[in-house]
């Protein structure tokens, strides 16, 4: 009955493609999950402790809308030392509730009704719905395994129309693990400038790259800074998913308008999360980001193990240069991603995410997260291997 109160705009946004799996998997007792999208580390002790100290000291008030200034200064210093870019902590940095809020804010700030926004496919599940909710039109730019799921200027050019306003640029990529190298970016940047597009660069996995791959922010290329909102956060690099803390960096006029929405809807990110983030960055600065490096090394070993095992099983899997996912092909089985994952879950109690949850171009692939203990991974591989024997 109450449905009549729901706006068609919201009603017509499809539910997340992983929801159904979540419902089935949630009822199973001894399922092993490769479906998670977060680190298997807990937040380092000293960071948790900083938040506890802050609570005990009674720091329970709002902060400035843009976030605590000491935090914005730390973020500015971190980006300067790790990515060699300068952002003014007073005017060009906004602390958000996860990078997720940054996606929403940047889209709502810049998208006019009917504007088209290019989104690489496969890609993270939130971009298209957020574009729709902001009144824009999501346009998927299909990438292909034959190009290693890399985005090229040709692919983009085919999708650009006079209505194209922005490009969402999510690298290192969830789910494919693709890292766009500096040369890849240089091939794309002129086209973006030519068509005067805004870039929303989601760099949440920037610290997790392997095999000598280096993350370069697209904002660091000539002519790109003034048209890029760079989104990042503490979830992946510092194992702080539940703290919901991220930040947006960009030109002052954009950040100022984003802050307007932020101040009316959120007010400020939770203070304890901000205090914890200050500790994360301060300590990182002092010890050359040892926490990040230790986690990265641990992911890297498991990444090799997973890539190697899938290939041995006959599920062809290229070595992902970033994030913590493998994206093996299941085409050889003749099943769709959805079928494969559903049967694997029902018959062997292993949770993987169908590639199609991340867009049509994900058909024929499954996303498997290797941020899980080696004994769990080994058991999952055994079950997947058994499953492949039965089909």
């Amino acid at each position: 009955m109450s449905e009549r109160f729901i706006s068609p705009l919201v009603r017509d946004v499809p539910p997340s493609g992983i929801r159904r799996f979540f419902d089935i998997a949630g009822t199973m007792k001894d399922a092993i999950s490769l479906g998670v999208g977060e680190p298997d580390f807990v937040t380092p002790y000293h960071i948790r402790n900083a938040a506890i100290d802050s609570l005990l000291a009674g720091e329970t008030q709002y902060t400035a809308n843009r976030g605590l200034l000491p935090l914005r200064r730390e973020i500015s210093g971190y980006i300067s030392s790790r990515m060699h870019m300068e952002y003014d902590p007073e005017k060009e940095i906004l602390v958000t509730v996860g990078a997720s809020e940054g996606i929403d804010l940047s889209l709502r700030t810049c998208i006019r009704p009917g504007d088209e926004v290019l989104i690489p496919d496969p890609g993270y599940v939130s971009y298209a719905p957020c574009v729709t909710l902001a009144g824009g039109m999501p346009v998927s730019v299909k990438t292909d395994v034959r190009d290693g799921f890399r985005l090229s200027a040709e692919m983009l050019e085919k999708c650009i129309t006079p209505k194209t306003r922005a490009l969402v640029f999510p690298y290192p990529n969830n789910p494919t693990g693709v890292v766009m190298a500096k040369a890849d970016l240089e091939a794309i940047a002129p086209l973006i400038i030519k068509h005067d597009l805004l870039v929303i660069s989601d760099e949440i996995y920037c610290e997790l790259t392997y095999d000598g791959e280096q993350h370069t922010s697209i904002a660091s290329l000539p002519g790109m800074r003034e048209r890029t909102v760079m989104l990042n956060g503490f979830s992946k690099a510092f194992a702080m998913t539940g703290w919901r803390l991220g930040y947006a960096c960009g030109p002052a006029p954009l950040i100022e308008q984003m802050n307007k929405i932020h101040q009316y809807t959120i007010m400020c990110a939770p203070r304890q999360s901000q205090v914890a983030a200050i500790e994360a960055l301060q300590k990182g600065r002092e010890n050359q980001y040892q926490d990040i490096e230790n986690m990265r090394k641990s992911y890297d070993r498991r990444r090799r193990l997973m890539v190697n095992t899938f290939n041995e099983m006959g599920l062809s899997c290229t070595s992902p240069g970033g994030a913590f996912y493998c994206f093996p092909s299941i085409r050889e089985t003749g099943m769709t991603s959805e079928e494969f994952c559903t049967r694997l879950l029902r018959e062997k109690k292993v949770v993987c995410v169908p590639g199609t949850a991340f867009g049509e171009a994900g058909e024929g692939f499954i996303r498997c997260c290797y941020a899980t203990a080696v004994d769990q991974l080994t058991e999952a591989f055994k079950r997947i291997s058994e499953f492949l024997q039965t089909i």
Partner: protein
Amino acid sequence: MENLKLELLELLQEDCRMPLEKLAVMTGKALDQVAQAIDEMEKDGVILRYRPVINWDKMQSNRVEAMIEVRVTPQRDMGFDAIASRIYRFDEVKSVYLMSGGYDLLVLVEASTLKELALFVSEKLSTLDTVTGTATSFVLKRYKQDGVVFEKRSPDGRLVISP
């Protein structure tokens, strides 16, 4: 090679039964390189033994353990080494450490009964020439050893699926 060795030690400390093939894959090195590194570490006495971490409380076994703080008079030219070696030769002694602080040696002892352990202290340990004093503390419960927590593994707090 040094880096590889450190990485292998980290992996073996987690699971010393991990097969060579898996170690090679996880470190991204060739199998024979990994085999050689482990071989060298075994020869050099870096890796002394491969053994499980056991929760004896789950088994029907009589074991009494104690940590004994021992004060000794160091010997001329030998320092603490001579007395330490006299102590570690007893079968009951599982570990011996030279310590900084209020006492000199920390001795971990294991016996099958309380009485046996008490006798060890009073008859074997305290009577050594250079031992000037001991303080024995019995182990009541083990919560964590060598980085392994003995209670049930805390559940993975993560959602089964997240985007």
